Every structure is written in structure tokens, then in C-alpha cells.
């Protein structure tokens, strides 16, 4: 044991790790929001609810089908992603020709419905979801104790984020996607099915949220409320980073998670609000966001 700035190393690195974990979720969720916003010009307010659905999906798979964490990691994002496809086809596709504020209002309504229904059936308290056996336990690093599952969450989310970045910035499919963001009409004239691409993009973004939900289930418990307050923090993260850049969303997400963790050590009263304060400062200094390209 040793101390840094009068804080025991255990506490400091422990909070740093929690910060990284929160940062993983901020990064994955803001990435999903950015991808959806890029294609649909809609801020997906139900993103938090869909994250919660991912966690519940993992819970159901274990409860009713006996399928554990590993299958859930694949199945839940696909199932929830498909509900996203349904939402886009049933509701969102009718709104593209109107002011994009209506998309925000519609997804806000959907979030109220989803969270309300889950709260009615499962109450407000959390349901436990245990860490898979293969990831139980931890390693003593000398300066801190590192639970293996938490390390896994950070590594997996970083991998998923970088894969998404690669998919969008470095592949043919991603190039089509970016082109369709810039000018859908011309891309259609090249024979690319843009409406289908929009639908799949929404499904993909929602799937990302659900994946984050499955990863969060063993850490935070599964509860109907888990996404509601998180999504507001993620909005602040998105404002800070700007939605123009995929890499920006990832860096901002992890960075803010770490800052929040450190605040818990040095000034615990401000840990709830530090991200919002940073947002206000960024708006004063760089109104377009750290990685933004202006409006």
C-alpha cells in the first residue's frame, strides 16, 4: 500500500477503474447515438431504454432458456436490434420529412412506454445477474485488486468501439454509409438501397446499446431505471465530444468516465455533476464541441 496525494492507492485505482467502466458505457452509448444521428438525423431518446432492454434480455435468456452470459452477449443485441428495426419501420420512417425535433419527441415517448411497462412488471428494484464463472475472481496487481470481469468489460468495449470505427471509416460499407449521410439522393442514384441502410443503421445503433446493457447487467444489476438517468449523462458526453467524429465519441466517453472516477476520490460531492460542469465549460470555450465540425 502507498499513497498518492494523500489518497490510498487502493481507493484511487479502484475509482479509476470504476471510471473506466463507466467510460466504457458512455463510449458505447454515445457511439450508438452518433451513428444513428449521422444517418437518421434523429437523437434517439430511447437509447437508455434499449440499453435496459439488452440487460433484461440477458436476464430472460438465463431465467427462461437457461442460456448464460456468453450466448446472451450475441443474442440480446440481435433481438433488441430487431426491435429497433421494427421501431424504425413502424414509426421513425414517417418522420424524416418533418423537423427532426419530432424524432426526439417520438423516441422520448417510446422510452416512457418501454420503461413504464418494465417498471410495472419488475418493480423499481434491481434483479441480480451474476458474473459468468469463467470471469469470476480477480488479480492482485500489488497496488490494487483487479476483478477480472471489470477488466473484461473495459477491453471488450474498447474492442467493440474500435471495430465500429474501423467498419465506418475503413470499409466499403462504411464508405457507402458516410456517403449516404452526406447526400442520400446521389447515393440512391448509384443503385444503393438507402432506406434499407437507414433501417439497418438504426438497428445496429440499438444493438450497440443492448450489448452495453448485457455487459452492464453483472455490474449494476438489471433494473427498469438503469438507462433513464444514464442517457442524460450520455447526452452531455455527446455535447462535449460533438457527434461529427466516431473516434471523438470514443475518446470523450472514456476520458469523461475517468474524470468522473477521479472526482469521486478528490471531491465526492461533485461526482454527479462534474460531467455537466465540464459540458458548460466546453460550451463556453469551444461551442462546437471538442471534436465537432460546427453545426
Amino acid at each position, binding site marked *: 500500500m502507498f499513497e498518492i496525494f494523500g489518497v490510498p492507492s487502493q481507493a484511487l485505482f479502484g475509482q479509476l477503474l470504476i471510471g473506466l467502466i463507466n467510460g466504457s458505457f458512455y463510449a458505447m452509448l454515445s457511439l450508438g447515438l452518433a451513428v444513428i444521428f449521422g444517418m437518421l438525423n434523429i437523437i434517439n431518446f430511447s437509447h437508455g431504454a434499449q440499453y435496459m432492454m439488452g440487460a433484461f434480455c440477458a436476464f430472460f435468456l438465463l431465467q427462461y432458456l437457461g442460456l448464460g452470459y456468453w450466448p446472451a452477449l450475441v443474442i440480446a443485441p440481435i433481438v433488441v436490434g430487431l426491435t429497433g428495426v421494427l421501431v424504425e419501420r413502424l414509426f421513425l420512417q414517417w418522420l424524416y420529412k418533418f423537423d*427532426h425535433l419530432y424524432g426526439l419527441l417520438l423516441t422520448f415517448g417510446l422510452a416512457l412506454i418501454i420503461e413504464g411497462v418494465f417498471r410495472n412488471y419488475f418493480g423499481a428494484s434491481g434483479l441480480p445477474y451474476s458474473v459468468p464463472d469463467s470471469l469470476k475472481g480477480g488479480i492482485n496487481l500489488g497496488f490494487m485488486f483487479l476483478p477480472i470481469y471489470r477488466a473484461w468489460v473495459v477491453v471488450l468495449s474498447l474492442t467493440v468501439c474500435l471495430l465500429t470505427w474501423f467498419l465506418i471509416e475503413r470499409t466499403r460499407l462504411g464508405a457507402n454509409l458516410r456517403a449516404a449521410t452526406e447526400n442520400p439522393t446521389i447515393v440512391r442514384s448509384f443503385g444503393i438501397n438507402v432506406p434499407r441502410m437507414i433501417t439497418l443503421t438504426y438497428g445496429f445503433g440499438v444493438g450497440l446499446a443492448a450489448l452495453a446493457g448485457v455487459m452492464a447487467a453483472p455490474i449494476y444489476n438489471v433494473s427498469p431505471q438503469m438507462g433513464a438517468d444514464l442517457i442524460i449523462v450520455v*447526452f452531455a458526453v455527446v*455535447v462535449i465530444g460533438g457527434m461529427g467524429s466516431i473516434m471523438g465519441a470514443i475518446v470523450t466517453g472514456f476520458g469523461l468516465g475517468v474524470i468522473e472516477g477521479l472526482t469521486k476520490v478528490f471531491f465526492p460531492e461533485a461526482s454527479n455533476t462534474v460531467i455537466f460542469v465540464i459540458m458548460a465549460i466546453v460550451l463556453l470555450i469551444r461551442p462546437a464541441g471538442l471534436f465537432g465540425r460546427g453545426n
Partner: protein
Amino acid sequence: MQDAPAVTQAPVQKRSYAVPIAFVVMLAFLLVAPHYTYPLIVMQGLCFALFACAFNLLIGYVGLLSFGHALFFGWASYVCAHLAKIGTISLPYWAGGLQWFVIPLPPLPPELAILGGTAVAALFGLIAGSLAIRRQGIYFAMITLALAQMMFFFALQMKFTGGEDGIQAVPRGKMFGVLNLSDPSTLYYVVLGIFLIGFLLIYRVIHSPFGEVLKAIRENEARAISLGYKTDRYKLVAFVLSAALAGLAGATKALVFQLASLTDVHWHMSGEVVLMTLVGGLGTIFGPVAGAFVIIAMQNYLSALDQWVTVIQGVIFVTCVLLFRRGIVGEIAALLRIKL
């Protein structure tokens, strides 16, 4: 020149009586309603109607969607409740450590408590507004929501708000030293008066040259800028005005229910005022009033359904966005081809 057609003059608009008639109908409803249902519910409706009108000033006439209006409503409610019950103000400042600057005040009469709450809401509106108008469209909504969430956490942590308990048993007192607000019917007419002042002020603002510039910004901000208008200043003034009126509604609500609580600063409240305005009709004068009464009535009559109320609100949101974007009053106005 006498025969020359007056092409340069603005065409004389045919005078429409729709708005005065609708106003009389609304006033008649508000005078009769407390005799047929609980006056408390009608007063709740009036407070939320004013709140929704204030919100509508931004979304309907400047095109700015604020998703954090609970910040102004809730904080004004806290400040008003505190001033009416305790009075003493303690302000923190930094001098080598956290110090408190204390202004010893007795509990204030209701008119000053409401004024205090409104002033604080206006101040917060100035701060939040000058941050939020730095970004447009969808970002504006996210920024206002995030700032409101921040102030929610402050309200949760600060001592004077009473945390989870809120400020309870707020005395209503005597307004201007003569109007005893403990008397239900006096209270009702005072609340009605406050609502009407706010409502008519908003109507006046919308139909002033200032309001015309706001509408120009809503329609085409770039064009308004090119015509030489400093649109950011117009937006900020509109934001402060809207925040102050939302505060007036919140402060009045604190006296009516004798309670200020976390519910009023929570983002659910911000969502609710959006819903009321959407249901009534965005950008209509009477829409927010109709929407507020519909939603308040629904909440009171369906309160037995408890948790399902949130789900029903969500369904109304989705339905309105997909099918009734004009809202109740907007649909009626379109049907009768008038402006309401």
C-alpha cells in the same frame, strides 16, 4: 396620387374575432370550472397552463426545444417556498474556504416570495440560455436537459431544499397584506389573476415587433441574420422571458400546494410540459392551456392506474407525433380556418 393604388402599403388584414371569442370561452370555463370540480385541480391546471405557455413561447415562436424547463419551474418553486417559510438567505462564497454570506430576512409575504422565485428563475434562464444558444437544433435540447439534470442534483444535495422531503407546510400568508390566501376562493382568483397576467403578457410579446423577429428566426435564422438582426440576443431574451414565466408558474404552484419537492425539478416534469404543449398544439396561443388541462385532468382521473399513467403519456406522445402534430387547438383552428 389620389388614384394610385396603395401597393406599398401593407394589405389591410380582415379583422378576425376568433382570438377574442376563444379568450372569452376560456375565461368563462375558468370562472365556472371550480364550481364543478375540485378548485385545487383547476389551480394545478392554471399553474401548468402558464408553465406550458412559457415553454410554448420558445418552441412555438422561436423554434427552440428546451428539454430542461423543470429547472426554472422547480427552482422558482423552492425559492418561493423558502422565502415564504424561512426568509433568511445564505449565499456561499470562497475566501480561503467556503464561507456563507447571510442576509437575515423574516418570512416574506407571498407577493415577494413569488417575485423572488421568478427573479431566480430569470437569472438561471440567463445563465442556462447563454450556454444553450451557442448550439442549435437537437443540441439545444440536449444541453438544456443536461443543465437541468445538473441543477436537479444540486437541489438534491443543498440543505435548504430539504432533499427528499422537500419544503413542506409552506404558509400562504396574505397577499399585499389584504388578500388572505388561506381562503380557497381568494386563492383561486389570485392564481387566476397571475395566470391571466402571464398569458396576456405572452400574447402581447408574440404580437409585438419583437415577436415578429422571433418568428422570423424560427422560419429562417440565416435570413434573419442577413437582415441585420442579432438573433442570439433575441433568442436569449426570449429564453429569459420563458424561464421567468415558467418560474412564476412554479412559484405560484409552491403556494397553492404549500410544497416544493424534487418532483418539480426532475426531468419527468420537463417531459410533461413538452407533452402538454404538444397535445394542445405547438405554436398556438390557446394550445398549451388546453393541453395542460387535458393532461392534468387525465392524471387526476386516471391516478388509480398508478404506474400505467407514464405508459399512457408515452402512448399519447407517440400518437401526437405521428398523427396529430398540430395538437387539439391546432386541429380545431385548421378545421375552422382561423388562427388561435
